[in-house]
């Protein structure tokens, strides 16, 4: 693991380590918006791909998965942030995993109690939230270094960004594959669903199509800035 390669420092001693003030960031709108859009976990950093593809065959599943993940992200982020000076550096990954697994177990039992239907639809993927790289990634890169409030805001932003990405896949797949949105039929009874979209390959295709769209937008923006800078260069 990563910690085996880091040189043993004073952080291995028991008791609180010195607080690193210089690495803490202040609470800004960017704290929230970064996770939502600029560093969107699915479309930009490509984390948490497994649930993204597996449970987005309908919008309601996507929403359930997104909100469960957001909950785990926020609560585990908060706890890790509070404990950040007490967790020894060498066992931090293991500690984070245990904290995350605890909250996932809670969510697992909660969903089972609230909606058995959703529980059956999401299946093992609720328990697999434990190994969602987004949560461990946020814990390691953000919650372990920042104060409570920015962590809460940042985790919420990332969670909602994840939910947004899941919904953008879930709605497209449900509309194409089932002709409905959130279970409400859109096209009338003679609509023939595009079956492959709700089957596994559809997940890859729809996500690939979204990626292409974002690539296209990015390329167009780059061309425009290049063109406009070229014009100013000529003018000057």
């Amino acid at each position, binding site marked *: *693991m*990563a910690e085996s390669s880091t040189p043993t420092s004073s952080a291995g001693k028991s008791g609180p380590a010195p607080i690193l003030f210089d690495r803490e960031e202040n609470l800004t709108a960017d704290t929230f918006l970064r996770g939502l859009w600029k560093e969107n976990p699915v479309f930009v950093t*490509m*984390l948490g*791909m*497994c*649930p993204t*593809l*597996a449970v987005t065959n309908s919008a309601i599943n996507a929403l359930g998965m997104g909100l469960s993940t957001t909950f785990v992200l926020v609560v585990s982020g908060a706890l890790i942030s509070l404990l950040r000076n007490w967790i020894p550096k060498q066992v931090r*990954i*293991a500690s984070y*995993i*245990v904290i995350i*697994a*605890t909250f*996932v*177990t809670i969510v*697992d*039992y909660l969903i089972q109690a609230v909606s058995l239907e959703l529980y059956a639809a999401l299946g*093992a993927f609720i*328990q*697999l939230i*434990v*190994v*969602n*790289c987004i949560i*461990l990634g946020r814990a390691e890169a953000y919650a372990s270094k920042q104060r409570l409030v920015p962590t809460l805001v940042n985790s919420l932003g990332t969670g909602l960004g994840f939910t947004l990405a899941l919904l953008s896949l879930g709605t497209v797949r449900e509309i194409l594959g089932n002709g409905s949105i959130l279970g409400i039929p859109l096209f009338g009874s003679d609509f023939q669903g595009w079956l*492959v979209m709700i*089957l*596994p*390959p*559809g*997940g*890859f*295709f729809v*996500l*690939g*199509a979204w*990626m*292409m769209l974002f*690539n*296209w937008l990015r*390329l167009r923006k780059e061309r425009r800035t290049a063109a406009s800078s070229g014009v100013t260069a000529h003018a000057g």
Partner: protein
Amino acid sequence: MPAESLPTIFLNAALVNNFVLAMFLGICPFLGVSSKKDTAFNMGLATLFVMLVSSAAAYGIDLLLTALDLEFLRLICYIAVIASAVQLVEMFIKKYSPALFRSLGIFLPLITTNCAVLGLALFQTAKEYDFVQSLVYALGAGGGFMLALMLMAGLREKLELARVPSVSQGAAMSLMLAGLLSLAFMGFAGLGGSHG
């Protein structure tokens, strides 16, 4: 105990319900370590080994937890076992093949967060497989993972030489390829008997 025969379990896990292409488990290494065939092979082998170890351990833990009436601790115990198994493999590879250790890079410790491994442990518990069935299931899942990784790596090596439109470069193209592979694997449906 389900009356599934061992070959059925193996085929089901490896082809019909391929962990990567039909159940979407282990997508991160699938997209991350599939650019070269030999790296893909070694990654597949390491994952297969971790799967076998954690499957055997998960079976024992499940027996213990069920006996003690502590099923709610299952998830935490499984992930701890998997993390230890990964650590073991990591030490082994570091000692015997430092070059391989470097080429796998960050993806080696990340086997811990490979959902295929935890998924395997959870599914074998849900399906109530006995010890031998669990091991065969792990073998099938690991073999299927390796197969998907190798196929993807082969396709991507060819893709290096192809001219793809600039909009679909990078991740988008890999996802489209994975979609086509997944479509091909749907052809195996019905081969392994009952679905699930």
